[in-house]
């Protein structure tokens, strides 16, 4: 509540003294340590990975970075607005398929996804361009859905986002000629180096930070803690929520595109309830209202999952090998 009060104060202060620019930079200077430290943590993980040089470990860390992007995307909306959204993995799905459409070899695309428009069939972009376009595509979708959904609040909003996720999933698992229905779309170029994912995660962290200290982010957090007071002070809650929804939609789309490039295959069911619950639990375990919480939650839970996998495969200690019985994963 103390944080809420100080936030409300700072909102009021920035509203009262909109002319006084330095106040804003003071806020930025005071809080910039968080994203810098988080980025250093991620960089450290990446460096350790590169130094060990083990391929499976490399892939694991890429997964971790992708999840960091997804969870940070979730945080931008859920953490700042306090509205639990089950629908964000839908934007990941949109982003992943957009990346697939843009990067698969045109020859293969003609065969497997004949329903795409001609200009899309002919294009083939490098992965980083496709990732940016995928993020923009997801942001556009978030803008359209958000215009409608952000009028709701509380549990009704959560259910409506759930309905949105189910809609996206239904469309993508049935639109044979454009998404290949439930069969997997293969042939997405796989990027195995760790750096693009690291850059993606760091960019996501900095965007989340910039949004959180922006006028819109502060207003949204004030509305999360005291909706009535915020509305009375002139915060347009649906509009601020929409801003956060679009920004987080773009990050989720970016995460989806990178995820597609990390595994090389996309199916609609990859981006459904399973991934939704895993990313949500990572956010909740870390602490729903904080950026560091989100990132640390991902790292912790991923380490736990990886640790259990190792135990499952068996760890040799001296003479004997310890292994968990099969079937205990997750």
């Amino acid at each position, binding site marked *: 509540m103390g944080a809420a009060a100080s936030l409300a104060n700072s909102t009021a202060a920035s509203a009262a003294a909109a002319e006084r620019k330095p106040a804003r930079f003071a806020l930025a200077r005071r809080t910039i340590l968080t994203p810098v430290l988080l980025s250093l943590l991620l960089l450290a993980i990446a460096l350790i990975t590169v130094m060990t040089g083990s391929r499976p470990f490399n892939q694991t860390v890429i997964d971790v970075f992708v999840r960091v992007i997804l969870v940070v995307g979730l945080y931008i909306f859920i953490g700042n607005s306090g509205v639990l959204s089950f629908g964000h993995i839908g934007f990941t799905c949109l982003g992943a398929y957009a990346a697939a459409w843009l990067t698969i070899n045109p020859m293969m695309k003609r065969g497997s996804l004949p329903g795409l428009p001609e200009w899309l069939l002919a294009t083939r972009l490098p992965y980083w361009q496709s990732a940016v376009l995928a993020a923009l595509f997801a942001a556009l979708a978030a803008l359209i859905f958000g215009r409608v959904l952000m009028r709701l609040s509380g549990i009704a909003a959560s259910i409506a986002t759930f*309905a*949105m996720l189910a809609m996206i999933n*239904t469309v993508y698992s049935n639109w044979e000629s454009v998404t290949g229905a439930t069969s997997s779309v293969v042939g997405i170029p796989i990027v195995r180096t760790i750096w693009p994912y690291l850059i993606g995660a760091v960019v996501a962290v900095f965007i989340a930070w910039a949004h959180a200290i922006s006028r819109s982010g502060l207003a949204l957090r004030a509305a999360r803690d005291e909706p009535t007071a915020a509305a009375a002070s002139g915060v347009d809650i649906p509009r601020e929520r929409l801003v956060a929804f679009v920004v987080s939609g773009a990050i989720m789309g970016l995460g989806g595109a990178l995820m597609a490039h990390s595994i090389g295959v996309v199916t609609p069911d990859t981006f459904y309830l399973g991934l939704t619950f895993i990313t*949500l*639990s990572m956010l909740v375990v870390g602490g729903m209202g904080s950026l560091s919480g989100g990132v640390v939650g991902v790292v912790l839970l991923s380490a736990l999952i990886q640790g259990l996998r190792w135990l499952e495969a068996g760890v040799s200690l001296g003479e004997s090998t310890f292994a968990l019985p099969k*079937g205990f994963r997750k």
Partner: protein
Amino acid sequence: MLQILFDALSLGSLYALGALGIALIFGVMRLVNFAHGDVIAFCVFALLWPSTDAMAIVFAGQLPWYLLVPFVLLCGAGLSVLCEIIVFRRFRQANPATMMIASFALGFVIRYFLLMLFSSRPKSISLLPALSQPVEIFGARLPLLQLITIVTTMVILIGLTLFMRQTRFGLEMRAAAENFSMARMLGVRANRVIMGAFALSGALAGAIALIFGSQTGTLDIQMGASIMLMAFIATVIGGLGSLGGAVLAGFLLGAASVIMQVMLPIDARPFRDAFVYGAVILVLLFRPQGLIAARGTKERV
């Protein structure tokens, strides 16, 4: 025409029973129980002997129906109460999002437990085969099972209404749903009411398991999930915490699915569910508090 009506009613019955199971628990605990779908799956698999073979080894499924039905209902109720005692009791003071995540996790545990015992392959079973014969009513041929589904649901709903209105326990439960702390102060025992709600909700899951299992004839670990999703949506459209609303919305969703299946052009039929979910968003836009808003859930300033 009559066929459509009966299809809608029987699908709606499933959704209504599921929604009721979720609404009961939400009423007393403000917990959205995502593990409900997995309780349904557990009840179905309780009929089999644990094995990972493709052939199902029927164990309890061979019991005569008058033993089979109570057995499955008890299974559901038992598992549900167990979940409450082991898991949800520790989360009474936690905020709703934390409880929701806890219920996901619990659902995962139940599902992977089943996976360990039965493997992920779908199994076929003929449960109560006598019920699949068609009967002729008013010139329409209907599977007997569909009739029984509808009749059973009606009986359960009427029974539950009587239970809620006429017995002391029902009264306590309604009081708890309306204002939990006030009810406690007036001498309603919290643990008893909450465990009662979980037991009822588990028994409802058992009922769904029986109906669904005998309708489809295949058992799949994932089978609870789709019903749970729809039931969950029905609970919210009906107005969270309102039992009547949950049932009404369950039937409406069933009707909407069946009607869209018939009315939509052939090309759009695979996307039926997308249209149903779109309708859900529309309903929420106009009535965010649900069709029948429960008292006491309104936010106060």
